[in-house]
């Protein structure tokens, strides 16, 4: 499955669908209010996917035996950190 998200510029009325619906990939990056970003320690992560299921923004993606974050959509809510049984997820200040 393709998980890259495109940032699409909308500068014409004809780019707007008649209702708020769009093909996957239409959504624009939306994470401006995050101050700290999640980091996964792959040595602790066992790939259980609990964080993937709980993430309210769908900003966690399965990656081989572990996960990775889609930082374009992560709001920094820390639900993934709270739910991780292995303590694999931590947050660090954005630079």
């Amino acid at each position, binding site marked *: 499955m393709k998980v890259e998200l495109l940032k699409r510029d*909308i500068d014409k*009325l004809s780019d*707007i*669908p*008649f*209702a*708020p*619906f*769009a*093909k*996957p990939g*239409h*959504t624009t990056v939306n994470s401006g209010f995050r101050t700290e970003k999640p980091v996964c320690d792959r040595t602790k992560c066992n790939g259980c996917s609990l964080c993937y299921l709980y993430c309210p923004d769908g900003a966690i993606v399965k990656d081989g035996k572990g996960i990775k974050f889609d930082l374009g959509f992560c709001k920094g809510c820390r639900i993934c950190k709270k739910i991780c049984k292995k303590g694999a997820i931590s947050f660090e200040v954005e630079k």
Partner: protein
Amino acid sequence: MARKFLSGNEAFAYGVKKARPHVISAYPITPQTTVVEALATFVTKGDLKSEFIHVESEHSALSAAIGASAVGARTFTATSSQGLLYMAECLTYASGGRFPIVMMNANRSVALPWNIYGDQRDSLSLLDTGWIQAYAKDAQEAFDLALMSFYIAEHKDVSTPFMANLDGFTLTHTYESVEIADDKTVDEFLPAFKTENKLDLDDPKNLGFSAGPDTNTEFKYLEHIGVQNTVKVILECEDRFYKHFNRRYTGLVEDYRCDDADFVIVTLGTVAGLVQDVVDALRAEGKKVGLLRLRYIRPFPNEEIAKALKNVKAIGVLEKDISFGNEGTVYTNVNSALKKANLTLRSSNYIAGLGGRDISKDEIKDIFNDLKDSDSKVKFIGLKGE
């Protein structure tokens, strides 16, 4: 084709049954209850194969309807008064999401003081929510509107939810002979609901997202155009309706003897029937009077009103509504139509029928009399004196 002796609510329920919605989701409230009861009975007996969802409130009723419409289902709900107000949050979700849900609203007063009888303050207070609003005159029009509402709402150029209004008790609970169309002709008249705006496993989409300042104006503009497009789709639908059922409707307004009239009452809903009788009686006495019934309030018939009233001396807008601190909302809208067409005829506002108070023939005659030298004050008809 068959004739049945039906109440307005039952007539509308028969219309909905013929339109065969996939999903019906509603919560009972007086005076809407009997339309939902009739539909529940059709479903229970197996005469209508719809998913009938029992919900715990009007807010949930419309939310469930939105969910159903978002997978491409033809969807119906019904409510009234406080129920409609409780739905208010979801009304803009349905219209902004462009989900062509059909709702029957039984027009009823809103609290306080608590009152279950008919006036139009419930729906008229929600004109800006983006729904099409039609007002029926009799039970036959209720049945016909039920069929036409799905055609209009689901049309690809419209894709907007439709609120069909029936005056509480005066229409919802009175009985008339109604011509019921046969299934085959209805199926020929009403095409299946098709839309791109749905969740579809074969064509995945992101539905109902947010739109910030960069695109919000464009979405709202397109929503406005959708409701504007309704004007041509209503006419197209009524032509099609005439070909299939041999009954002719007249678009956004119904003009009754306005042609050479000096004085015209502009109104909506069932009271138009009574005004029509008074117009006939006064015409028989040689008085040049007429009636303009507004069948739709959204989209608003700006051009149709100007065309019908261009040679008239004075009009009175008779409505079961008051926007406190100003005037009746229909009056505001009608005056705007006159102004845009540069018409300078006198216009007055007559507030009547609040909380179900009857409007009499004599009161309508008095309004026509008053129009001879009317001012533009807001008048409450039948107000008790000091």
